[in-house]
C-alpha cells in the first residue's frame, strides 16, 4: 500500500480522507492557502505545505504547485477530493506524467465522461437510456415535429447555440409547437445568429437519483445502490438519502446494471457516480458521470458498511475488488443534511465570521463530517458548507426523527446557518412522504416558508425571560456569586421547586 499520499483539497473532505489514511497506516500530506494555515485538516495531517494565497485560483487550483509539493514531500499518490482539480483530466495526466498515482480514474476516462455529448453517445451505445430527442441540431420544421411526436409531449425545444434559457421553450402539446418553434427560432436567430434547434423530451418535476460505482483496474465493476438527491436549491443538493422511496429492488438492479455498463465501457477505475434523472413514471435517463468521490458518499458508506476512501486507495494501489455485486448488503435508511453558513431567512446570503461556540450531542446513529472547530473562521473564499450530519435509522422515519433530534441539539454561534431551514424541510409533508423532486424547493417550498410560525406561548415566555436575564447580567457591574468562569455575566443558583 502507499506509504504517503497528498490530499489536494481542504476542509471536511480532507479530514475525511486523512482519517481513513491514518487508519490504514498511510501518512498524509496536506497543502494550504494563506487562509487555511492552521485549519483543522492541516493539524490532523502529518505534513503541511503552503501553496499560495487564499483564493482557490491561487492555491488549490495550482496544479503545478501541488505536483511539486507531492515530489518534495515524497507523496506517492494524490487524492483530489471533490471540486477543485478532482475532475480535471489534465491534472490526472500531470500526475501520471510525473510518476504520481492519481486516486481516481485514468485521465482518458475523465475526459470522455466529462464531455456531455461523448458521454451521451457512450450511453446510447451501451443501451443506457438517455433523454430522447433529436440528438443533433435541426432546421427542418417537419423533422422537428416528427421527433417531437416520437418522443411524446411535453418536449423542450432549445437553440443549438443557446444557453442561459434563451431560445428555450417547453411545448406541452402538438398544437402549440408551430408557434413555439417560430418564437424560439426567431430568438435564436437574433441572439446567436443560428436558428437551428434541438428537440428533446421535457422531463417535468424530475428526480435526481445517482448510483455509486466502484471499479478496479482489472475490469471488475460493482454498484453500491442509489442516492436520492432531489432536494436541491439552485442545483445545489441540500438533503440526500438512501434508499430512494421510489426505487424498488427491480429498478435498483436495472439502473445499477446500466451504471455499471456505462462505467465499464468508459475504461473507468476507482469510485464514481452515475447520475440519472427519473420522471414521474419512474422512467430513468442518464444525466452524467461524476468521476470522483461525492459530497454525499457517507450515506452509501453507512448503508453498505463500507469505507469508500479505503476502497479508493486499494483500487488506486492496483488491488482487485474483494467484493462482488452479491456481497453488497443494504441496511436501513440513511439521510445526510448539509449544514451551510448562510442566512436562510435572508435569501440564503452566505454568512462569514468567527465561530465563537459549538455544542453538539450526536450520539447513537449519528455521524458528523466536518472541517471546522470552535474558534475557526468561515471565510468568503470557499464553499459555505461547514459540516455534514448523517443519520442512520432502521427505517426511514427513524432516520428522519434522529436527524431532527441531532439538528435541534446542534448549536453553532458567531455565524448564521441553515439548520432551521433543514428542519423545515424535514418536517414538510412532501419530504416525509418522500414525494419531492428537484424543483420542489423553488417551486413550492420557499413560498410556503414566508408565512413563518410564531413561537408558542410557553416558548415566548421562556425567550422573554432569557432575554431579560441576559440583559440583567450584561449590565456593567461586578458579578455576584458567579459560577461561570468564562463569562463576565453573573450566574445565579436557586433553590428551585425542591
Amino acid at each position, binding site marked *: 500500500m502507499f506509504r504517503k499520499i497528498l490530499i489536494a483539497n481542504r476542509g471536511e473532505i480532507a479530514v475525511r480522507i486523512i482519517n481513513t489514511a491514518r487508519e490504514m497506516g498511510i501518512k498524509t500530506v496536506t497543502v494550504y492557502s494563506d487562509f487555511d494555515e492552521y485549519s483543522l485538516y492541516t493539524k490532523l495531517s502529518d505534513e503541511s505545505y503552503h501553496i499560495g494565497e487564499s483564493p482557490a485560483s491561487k492555491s488549490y487550483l495550482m496544479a503545478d504547485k501541488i505536483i511539486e509539493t507531492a515530489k518534495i514531500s515524497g507523496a506517492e499518490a494524490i487524492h483530489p477530493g471533490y471540486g477543485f482539480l478532482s475532475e480535471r483530466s489534465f491534472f490526472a495526466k500531470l500526475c501520471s506524467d510525473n510518476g504520481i498515482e492519481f486516486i481516481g480514474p485514468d485521465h482518458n476516462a475523465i475526459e470522455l465522461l466529462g464531455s456531455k455529448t461523448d458521454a451521451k453517445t457512450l450511453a446510447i451505445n451501451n443501451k443506457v437510456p438517455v433523454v430522447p430527442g433529436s440528438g443533433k441540431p435541426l432546421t427542418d420544421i417537419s423533422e422537428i415535429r416528427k421527433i417531437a411526436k416520437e418522443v411524446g409531449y411535453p418536449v423542450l425545444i432549445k437553440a443549438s447555440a443557446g444557453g442561459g434559457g434563451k431560445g428555450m421553450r417547453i411545448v406541452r402539446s402538438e398544437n402549440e409547437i408551430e408557434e413555439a418553434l417560430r418564437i424560439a427560432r426567431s430568438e435564436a436567430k437574433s441572439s446567436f445568429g443560428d436558428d437551428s434547434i434541438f428537440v428533446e423530451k421535457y422531463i417535468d418535476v424530475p428526480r435526481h437519483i445517482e448510483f455509486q460505482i466502484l471499479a478496479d483496474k482489472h475490469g471488475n465493476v460493482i454498484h453500491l445502490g442509489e442516492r436520492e438527491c432531489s432536494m436541491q436549491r439552485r442545483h445545489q443538493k441540500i438533503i440526500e438519502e438512501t434508499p430512494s422511496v421510489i426505487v424498488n429492488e427491480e429498478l435498483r438492479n436495472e439502473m445499477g446494471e446500466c451504471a455499471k455498463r456505462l462505467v465499464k465501457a468508459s475504461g473507468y477505475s476507482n469510485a464514481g457516480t452515475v447520475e440519472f434523472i427519473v420522471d414521474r413514471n419512474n422512467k430513468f435517463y442518464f444525466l452524467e458521470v461524476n468521476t470522483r468521490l461525492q459530497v454525499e458518499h457517507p450515506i452509501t458508506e453507512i448503508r453498505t458498511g463500507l469505507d469508500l476512501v479505503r476502497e479508493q486507495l486499494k483500487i488506486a494501489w492496483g488491488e482487485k475488488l474483494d467484493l462482488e455485486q452479491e456481497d453488497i448488503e443494504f441496511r436501513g435508511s440513511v439521510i445526510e443534511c448539509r449544514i451551510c453558513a448562510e442566512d436562510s431567512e435572508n435569501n440564503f*446570503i452566505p454568512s462569514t465570521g468567527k465561530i465563537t461556540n459549538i455544542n453538539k450531542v450526536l450520539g447513537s446513529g449519528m455521524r458528523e463530517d466536518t472541517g471546522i472547530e470552535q474558534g475557526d473562521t468561515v471565510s468568503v473564499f470557499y464553499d459555505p458548507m461547514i459540516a455534514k450530519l448523517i443519520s442512520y435509522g432502521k427505517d426511514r422515519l427513524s432516520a428522519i426523527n434522529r436527524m431532527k433530534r441531532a439538528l435541534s441539539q446542534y448549536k453553532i454561534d458567531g455565524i*448564521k446557518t441553515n439548520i432551521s431551514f433543514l428542519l423545515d424541510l424535514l418536517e414538510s409533508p412532501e419530504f416525509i412522504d418522500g414525494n419531492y423532486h428537484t424543483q420542489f424547493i423553488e417551486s413550492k417550498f420557499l413560498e410556503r416558508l414566508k408565512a413563518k410560525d*410564531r413561537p408558542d406561548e410557553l416558548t415566548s415566555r*421562556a*425567550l*422573554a425571560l432569557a432575554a431579560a436575564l441576559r440583559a440583567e447580567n450584561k449590565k456593567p457591574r461586578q458579578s455576584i456569586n458567579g459560577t*461561570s468562569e468564562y463569562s463576565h455575566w453573573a*450566574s445565579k443558583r436557586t433553590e428551585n421547586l425542591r
Partner: protein
Amino acid sequence: MKKYFISIDCAEPKIEVNLNGLNSSLIDGIESKYSYKIINDNVMVLRMDNLNFYFDFNSEGNEYLQIGLNGRVYDVDCKSDLDVLIEKMSGNKTDGKAVKEIKSPMPGIIKKVNVASGQDVAKGEVLLVLEAMKMENEIKAIVDCKIKKVNVEQMSSVEKNELLIILE
C-alpha cells in the same frame, strides 16, 4: 424589581417581564419560578417551572439579539423600563427609526450598481449585486426610500460592514 419589555420576531404587544430577585418572575402577569446558568457568552440554560430551555445567543452584527432554541432562531428585542423611559423622553422611539445606511453583509465584490444619488427606490428593488462565495447576492431596499449617496462602484471590493449606500 427589574422590569423588561421583550418583543419576539417583532410581535406586538411586547411581553413584560418582572424579575423580583427571588428566582421568581412575572411574565405578562404569570408567575414562574426559575433558575439558570450562563455557560458562556453564547450559551445559557434556563429552568422555568422545571422545564428546561437550552438557549444560544448570537448578537454580533445583527440588529436584534438572536436566540436559538432547538435549532430554531428567534429575533428578540429587549428593553429595560429605563430604556423605554429614555426613548419616551427623547420623543424618538427606536422602533420607528428608519435604516439610514446600508452596509455590506459580507466581504465580496460589487458586480452591479443599480441606483444613483437622488434616486427614489421602492421596497424590494435591487440596489446592488454583491458577489461572494461564488454566489451573486442581491441587496434590496427594505422600505421605500431615496438614495442620498452610493459609496461603491462596479467591481469595488468591499469588506464586511463596509458602508455601501446612504439613504435620506
